[in-house]
């Protein structure tokens, strides 16, 4: 029995661990285009920031492959696959047969329209890219960050921390518009501005300037901006170039059933590449976040090894700490203005806290918390488990919420 896992991110690693736990003798192969041992992708921004060294990134010991008896196939990409013959064709010309396959290939950064072939223009998706940025930092005075999503936001924070002048271009009125609502976004924006971030709203880059190395950018509003480092953080797209769409259904991401199996039997998918049922939105959604990837990997692994485990669905959630603000957003925080949804919120300017809860009927489906976030996990669990709120909904707004106060 040969299990092949495409990707050695947290989804792939969790799957391998689950398979090995259930099946001590099978062969496990892990393919990754990165040649380093499994590491924590969300922490690469901390390496940019300088608060964590790259040596702290690995999530498992250096003996990970060895101790789990996994055959790593590193530095390789999957070029295409034959799902009938159950064979993978790698970019280096090699082939790899499989009995059961997990696609945990993650996601790739969304490119920008302007040609970006100059030096010091970076995506921020992997460790290698961040290490390259570190090399460029000593000569960086002005940085330009494209996009106010999570990646752009984290990049901007990291650079600000290092005392670099940062300009951020965002399409909507405030950063993290997909993750938080307008008030929380405003709080984030004012905190970042207070810390020296320049924000330009509603504009994008039409062309980069520079010979070999970037020196500036032309913007759609006709202005020009000087910069010696550019980080592109315009979101990610599931890495599905090798997936045969005629055999495996792909929408925004790879479509899976509640056992994380794709439409092609024996082939599973997990992590950022997957489009799964979103618990809060009650529709399929790509929730490319670390804890979902870990959970999906684990459950996919168990299903692959023959132990049927149901995956309930995914839930978007993020926790962000910037300077003096803690922000926790979970579920459908920006549900549309519709009588189906009720919203309770409390903005306490004295304590600088903000809480916004979105309900659909009796069920909590989204929450945004700014500061005093310790009990956010309780809210997450309520959304995740679709626990109807029968006690007063206002009670949930209190920062010192406890389980007992929800028991009735």
């Amino acid at each position, binding site marked *: 029995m040969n299990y092949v896992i495409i990707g050695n991110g947290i989804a792939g690693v*969790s799957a391998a661990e689950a398979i090995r736990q259930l099946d001590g003798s099978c062969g496990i192969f892990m393919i990754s285009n990165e040649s380093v041992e499994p590491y*924590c992708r*969300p*922490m690469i921004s*901390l390496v940019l920031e300088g*608060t*964590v060294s790259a040596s*702290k990134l690995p*999530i*498992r010991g250096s003996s990970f492959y060895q101790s789990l008896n996994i055959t790593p196939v590193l530095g390789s990409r999957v070029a295409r696959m034959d799902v009938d013959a159950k064979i993978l064709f790698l970019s280096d010309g090699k082939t790899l047969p499989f009995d059961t396959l997990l696609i945990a290939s993650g996601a790739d950064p969304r490119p920008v329209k302007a040609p970006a072939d100059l030096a010091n223009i970076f995506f921020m998706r992997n460790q290698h890219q961040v290490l390259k940025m570190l090399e460029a930092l000593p000569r960086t005075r002005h940085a330009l960050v494209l996009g106010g999503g999570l990646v752009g936001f984290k990049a901007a924070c990291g650079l600000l921390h290092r005392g670099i002048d940062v300009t951020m271009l965002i399409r909507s009125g405030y950063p993290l518009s997909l993750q938080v609502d307008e008030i929380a976004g405003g709080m984030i924006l004012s905190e970042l501005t207070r810390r020296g971030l320049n924000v330009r709203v509603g504009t994008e880059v039409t062309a980069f300037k520079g010979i070999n190395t970037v020196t500036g950018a032309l913007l759609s509003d006709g202005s020009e901006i000087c910069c010696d480092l550019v980080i592109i953080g315009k979101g990610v797209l599931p890495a599905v170039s090798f997936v045969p769409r005629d055999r495996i259904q792909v929408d925004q991401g790879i479509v899976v059933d509640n056992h994380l199996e794709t439409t092609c039997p024996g082939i599973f998918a997990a992590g950022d590449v997957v489009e799964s049922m979103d618990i809060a939105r009650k529709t399929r959604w790509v929730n490319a976040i*670390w*804890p979902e990837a*870990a*959970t999906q990997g*684990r459950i996919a692994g168990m299903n692959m090894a023959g132990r049927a485990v149901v995956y309930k669905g995914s839930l978007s*959630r*993020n*926790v962000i*700490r910037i300077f003096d603000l*803690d922000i*926790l957003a*979970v579920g459908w925080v920006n549900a549309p203005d519709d009588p189906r949804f009720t919203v309770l919120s409390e903005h306490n300017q004295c304590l600088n806290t903000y809480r916004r809860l979105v309900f659909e009927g009796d069920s909590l489906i989204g929450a945004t918390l700014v500061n005093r*976030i*310790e*009990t*956010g*996990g*309780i809210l*997450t*669990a309520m959304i*995740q488990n679709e626990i109807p709120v029968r*006690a007063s909904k206002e*009670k949930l707004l209190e920062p*010192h*919420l*406890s*389980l*007992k*106060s929800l*028991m*009735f």
Partner: protein
Amino acid sequence: MNQVIVHPERCVGCMQCMAACATAHSRTRQLFSAIRETPLPRSRIHLGTGLYAEGFPNRCRHCNPAPCMLACLPGAIHRDMQTETVYVDPDRCINCASCAMACPFGVIRYHEDASAPPKKAVAIKCDNCMERQQQERVPACVEVCKSGALTFEDNSKALKRKTDQVAQSISAGIDVPQGSPSFTLLNTIKRAQIAVRHAAV
């Protein structure tokens, strides 16, 4: 294996467990000196307030699988298989609060602590008082709980007791007293007081 078991129906809300926990995790392990330490030691057990102002000792369940562990980015949370204890390694913790989002019980806090590198806030949660257990002492919260809301015993024993209680309560024709009549009286009055307020507004 003995573990801390919470019996919320017996919690009188005295907060003794919080003071004892903070003291047990201080540098000096003594109440009178602990309250003068910097950073000030903080409890890892948190007394919540119920709908009727009754107490509820909220404490890490050391879940398996532990959602905090799955969510931890730097791999700072691990499980000691022998004691079934979920630990946070303060030296690996990056204070990202991902575990706050994962913990369904809201029992993880973020602050400086005697066990962490100086001046660095880290995720702090119950460690089952492993240090005390190695000295063959029961966890601090259990030691001070005089109402029996926290016990340290084998789960199977506690379950057996509960099962017996349920069985006795349905024994036909015999009225077995349950709990404390005094505490029931107090809680009845408190509930009534709060119910009056709710009804009035």
